């Protein structure tokens, strides 16, 4: 069928600068560039370009740039180009439109409407270069009270397992299969070096990564891929994945083409078969069932590891989180609407869920009101872009955050949203032998460690500015936030006051 879709981007080549080295041709995962020997020229198939910028960055003479196709439609606020083009694509394929990465629609980003406080005159700020600044965070259930019985003063009555992270930033669940082994190894190495956690996602833990298991959170998702005793024993935290911010309500889908021999062995499924996670866990149809799985995992790990439950941020997150805590979870991770994915139906990614800022504030408020906030740590995920977002999430009530997209961007991702094709030119969201070599774990783990270090230093600076020397003093401390451009209802849900008040 002839496609009616116009090219979205145009590759512009400055012929004055192009030296015909053909690096662009070799680097493009989407076969955009072609060398023609007869003309000694490079030609471009613009319609294949996804604007990942691999060729632009690798061109040794800076001869390339990618621009939006300036093609104009008759202006129509309702029938915008994206709506028209999605419809065309659907008319041509008859399927669900897939996409990658997180929600790209202009829903309000509340991080940008929250401002941080700083000390001036009446209370001193702290200089993190000269004074100690504590970012270490302990995740896990905290006791309800201190046992003050004679001879036992100041000691916990009974302490649930705790895990320490040196910075409140962990790497989100990204499964092996969705990303290459090199990428997961890079995440694992950076987490190990910096003293934080990476998350295996639902694809199991490859045998070569068991040496990093002291810094691993392992997931048990509805597909139960790669779950076995050794996997649970290796981890520091076991996470039950109920939902994901990019696609609340549906399960994961790894196409068979990406299920290589190694992926198959790690997931414990036949090679080349689609790895489809069911939408629900087939043994969880109520909060009581969730409790059974939590305690089954606690039994399996001999009560030595915190059990985390990850849900997507949806309308009733606060009540759901309360149920999860009461069901026995030690950590509740909440993934907002901007959380990313390797592949999701576009219609779901763009329309289902709620922003993480509202969800984390609502959950923290609810758990506090119920007097059970101490029973679980809260982890915010989905749309954290910089250290200010981290610190705002913590002030809204999170204990720590997960970063996924930010970590991938640190490794080279240019957020072109073509992860679902498996042709990632940056070698990240692919299991292709040729493409995945582009991530050298030595380089990528260095970039990730730099990211963690940079953000941690910035967090210390911001904390010091507020006159706080330990991150835990900021947790849920919404007095350090003020809102701008928000309605009364938004301010009320966020639990912050208007700037100036």
């Amino acid at each position, binding site marked *: 069928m002839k496609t009616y879709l116009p090219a979205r981007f145009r590759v512009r080549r400055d012929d004055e*600068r192009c*030296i015909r080295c*053909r690096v662009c041709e070799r680097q493009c995962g989407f076969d955009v560039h072609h060398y023609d020997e007869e003309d000694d020229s490079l030609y471009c198939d613009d319609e294949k370009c996804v604007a990942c910028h691999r060729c632009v960055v690798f061109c040794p003479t800076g001869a390339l740039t990618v621009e939006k196709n300036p093609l104009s439609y008759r202006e129509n606020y309702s029938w915008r180009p994206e709506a028209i083009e999605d419809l065309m694509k659907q008319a041509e394929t008859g399927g669900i439109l897939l996409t990658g990465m997180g929600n790209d629609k202009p829903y309000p980003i509340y991080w940008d409407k929250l401002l941080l406080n700083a000390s001036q005159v009446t209370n001193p700020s702290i200089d993190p270069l000269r004074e100690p600044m504590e970012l270490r965070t302990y995740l896990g259930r905290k006791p309800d009270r201190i046992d003050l019985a004679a001879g036992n003063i100041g000691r916990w009555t009974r302490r649930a397992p705790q895990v320490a992270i040196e910075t409140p930033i962990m790497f989100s669940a990204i499964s092996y299969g969705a990303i290459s082994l090199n990428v997961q190894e890079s995440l694992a190495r950076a987490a190990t070096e910096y003293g934080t956690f990476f998350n295996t996602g639902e694809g199991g833990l490859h045998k070569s990564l068991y040496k990093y298991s002291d810094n691993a959170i392992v997931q048990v998702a509805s597909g139960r891929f790669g779950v076995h005793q050794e996997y649970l024993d290796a981890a520091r935290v076991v996470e039950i994945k109920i939902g994901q911010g990019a696609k609340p309500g549906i399960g994961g889908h790894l196409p068979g083409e990406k299920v290589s021999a190694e992926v198959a062995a790690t997931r414990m499924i036949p090679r080349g078969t689609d790895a489809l996670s069911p939408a629900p866990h087939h043994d969880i149809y109520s909060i009581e069932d969730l409790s059974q799985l939590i305690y089954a995992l606690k039994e399996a790990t001999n009560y030595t590891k915190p059990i985390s439950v990850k849900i997507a941020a949806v309308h009733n997150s606060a009540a759901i989180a309360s149920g999860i805590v009461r069901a026995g979870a030690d950590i509740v991770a909440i993934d907002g609407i901007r959380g990313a994915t390797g592949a999701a139906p576009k219609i779901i990614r763009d329309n289902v869920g709620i922003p993480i800022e509202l969800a984390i504030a609502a959950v923290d408020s609810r758990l506090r009101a119920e007097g059970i906030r101490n029973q679980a740590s809260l982890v915010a995920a989905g749309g954290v872009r910089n250290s200010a977002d981290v610190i705002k999430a913590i002030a809204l009530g999170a204990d720590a955050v997960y970063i996924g997209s930010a970590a991938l961007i640190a490794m080279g991702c240019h957020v072109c949203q073509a992860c679902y094709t498996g042709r990632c030119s940056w070698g990240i969201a692919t299991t292709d*032998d040729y493409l995945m070599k*582009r991530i*050298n774990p*030595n380089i990528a783990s260095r970039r990730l460690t730099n990211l963690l270090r940079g953000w941690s230093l910035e967090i210390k600076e911001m904390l010091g500015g507020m006159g706080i020397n330990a991150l835990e003093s900021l947790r849920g401390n919404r007095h350090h936030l003020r809102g701008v451009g928000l309605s009364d209802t938004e301010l009320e849900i966020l639990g912050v006051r208007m700037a100036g008040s």
Partner: protein
Amino acid sequence: MKRIVAREEYCIGCRLCEVHCVVQHSRTKNIIKAFKKERVRPTARIHVEESGPESFSLQCRHCDEPSCVYACLTGAMHKDELTGAVVHDPERCIGCWTCLLFCPNGAIAKDAAHGKVVAKCDLCGGQGTPACVENCPNEALVLEEVP
């Protein structure tokens, strides 16, 4: 001595090493001029070998027992006693290509730019990091002390 080591597991076959080798051995050292303006373009002293996803770049190994040096009829190819590098003196080269035949790695090429002489890796004169190593985007080429 320090040698260039290729790590095939990280080589992505982009061939930027070849491009930057040409620039380094050009007259102007300006990438655009070297490729578009200079009358003779130098031959790359490094070559990427590729088969499917496997690739690595190959240049002179600066062998301890250099066949090319033993084979050279005029002594143009010789081992620098100070640096240990196998270097080539174009003044003495007669273009017999015997070295080319004897090199076990296929790391010597005819120098298109200078007629009869051969082109081979000179470790960029031994001054600092060679251009191929410096410009490898994936650290698939590293300069290491290899005994």
